[in-house]
């Protein structure tokens, strides 16, 4: 890559497409961006689970999970929830505008290690953003995995991200997509109820299976409990952490949890490891 020796210098990228995934005060907007420099574009490589520091000059940067799989093409996708100063500035960006990007940061989901296994993703709300690259990655490499089951829920149908992509998934034999919302709605054809309960109802076998969960802390807590009830061992379960971050390379100290830096040693953690980290669930 045409690297700056200083790892904190971001690269300009152009926003190609944007759309809103959800509405409301904490709406989620997705950005498809492409690096301006051809060399940077060609040499960039990331894996499902990794993040990037994205930002707007004059405002700042935020660590956001890359919500596309490298199998999708030479672009990046970020789905950003409106939360604070930087995400507000990001939400102003429209096609043609510049976004500053550096990374990729962090470890990744060990997709190679998982080959030959059944993949079960359990997501809630914006938590589907880091799971989406796994779904896309497995879809693109179906011969290497023993099927994919996706459980995804949100408060209402309007709060579900990536809605347009699920229908196609349910047509594939090896891919099962289960959607749920918290409260009954007119014209809703899928499940009604919380994600952890839906997991129990589906009763997936832990045999040769990897479970990955991302979502609100309360959901993760009950999903972990229910996975244990279903007989999943700790090392079959993965999740991701998010902390405030500034540098992205394990120096600035902000995302320190135990002897780990979430930006460098995470964001992906095996539950067997995570259980031993103080403050992991703080």
């Amino acid at each position: 890559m045409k690297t700056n020796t200083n790892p904190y210098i971001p690269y300009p990228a152009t926003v190609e497409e944007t759309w809103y995934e959800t509405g409301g005060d904490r709406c989620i907007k997705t950005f498809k961006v492409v690096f301006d420099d051809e060399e940077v574009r060609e040499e960039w490589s990331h894996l499902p689970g990794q993040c990037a520091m994205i930002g707007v000059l004059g405002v700042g940067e935020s660590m956001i999970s890359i919500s596309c799989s490298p199998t999708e093409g030479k672009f990046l996708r970020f789905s950003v929830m409106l939360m604070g100063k930087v995400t507000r500035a990001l939400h102003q960006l429209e096609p043609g505008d510049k976004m500053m990007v550096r990374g990729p940061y962090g470890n990744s989901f060990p997709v190679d290690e998982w080959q030959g296994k059944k993949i079960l993703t359990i997501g809630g709300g914006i938590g589907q953003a880091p799971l989406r690259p796994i779904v896309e990655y497995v879809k693109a490499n179906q011969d290497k995995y023993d099927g994919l089951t996706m459980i995804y829920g949100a408060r209402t149908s309007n709060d579900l991200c990536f809605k347009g992509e699920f229908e196609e998934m349910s047509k594939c034999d090896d891919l099962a997509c289960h959607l749920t919302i918290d409260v009954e709605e007119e014209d809703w054809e899928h499940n009604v109820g919380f994600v952890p309960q839906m997991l129990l109802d589906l009763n997936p076998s832990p045999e040769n299976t990897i479970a990955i969960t991302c979502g609100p802390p309360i959901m993760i807590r009950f999903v972990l409990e229910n996975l244990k009830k279903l007989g999943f061992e700790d090392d079959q379960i993965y999740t991701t952490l998010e902390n405030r971050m500034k540098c992205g390379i394990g120096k600035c100290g902000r995302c320190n949890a135990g002897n780990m830096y979430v930006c460098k040693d995470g964001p992906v953690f095996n539950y067997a490891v995570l259980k031993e980290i103080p403050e992991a669930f703080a």
Partner: protein
Amino acid sequence: MKKIIAREKLPELWKSLSELGPLFLPVQEGPVVLFQPWQEGAETNLDTTNTAVPPKDLFLPREETYMQYRCKGKELEVIPAEEVKPAVLFGVHPCDLYAVEMLDKVYMEQDPPDELYKKRRENTTIVALSCASPDPFCFCNDFDVNPAEAPGTDVMAQLKNGSVLLEAKTDKGKALLEQAGDLLEDGSGEEFARREVKTADFNLKLDGLPEDLKNRFEDPVWDELFKSCLGCGVCTYVCPTCYCFDVEDFGHEAGGERFRCWDSCMYGHFTEMAGGHNPRPGRKERVRQRFMHKLRYYPETFGQIACVGCGRCLRSCPVNLDIVQAIQALGGETVEQR
């Protein structure tokens, strides 16, 4: 290579060395001594034990703009900060140099390196000065730091009978002494005085402490220890092994800069996320984090406790919530036993 110079001729040496680049050395600034760039007439003070603030800011400045940007319509220009110039750090004491080596592990040895830090570190020639007499807060003996020796230095120096004896330990150090030329006299016949420098020794129980703390995250000690903390952050500011920083932007659409500056885990905003969630919401969590990092997390990664016994937190903490108090509380001793 050994050289010697009379103390009264030191200003000439400063002048010569400062031609290489900025020369940082202990300078009396009112009531305190700080590492400052030497200027003609500077009131240097080599007899002080520890400067008020450690010299970590030479490598990790309190504030540095590392990038500027300019936008003109669709044209965007990102301008990284200029290359760093060579510098000399003169008169750093062994404890502070041990601490710099602890920062090196995080900033240079762990991938990817922090190039801003690394370039400064590589471009700086260090002259360490052995301690003659420790000040009352020094307790480096507790950490097996020998205040008379500094293994990582480029040049070792010792104050000796109205002279300064200098010995080059690296090629960089040799080049520095050569720069001074005839100002330095041959010191090959001189010996460094063997000194047993005794600092305070709190007899801290450090063996096995990192291991012991593994199961003490929820220890009742934390419920008491934090209570006096004011959250002022001075401990992190003066600590030579504290290295956290913040990154902020300053500017507008047409242009501006991105800079980083020291930050502190003792401040509430440090971990507060957009949306308001804070994994360390109170002083208890923050005090625990700071001491756990020094005594457990850093040792777990790098095999040594992140303290060199420089005594600055003992001197500066307004409520005496220093690392000695913490270690003693965690070691089961009451503060009164101190």
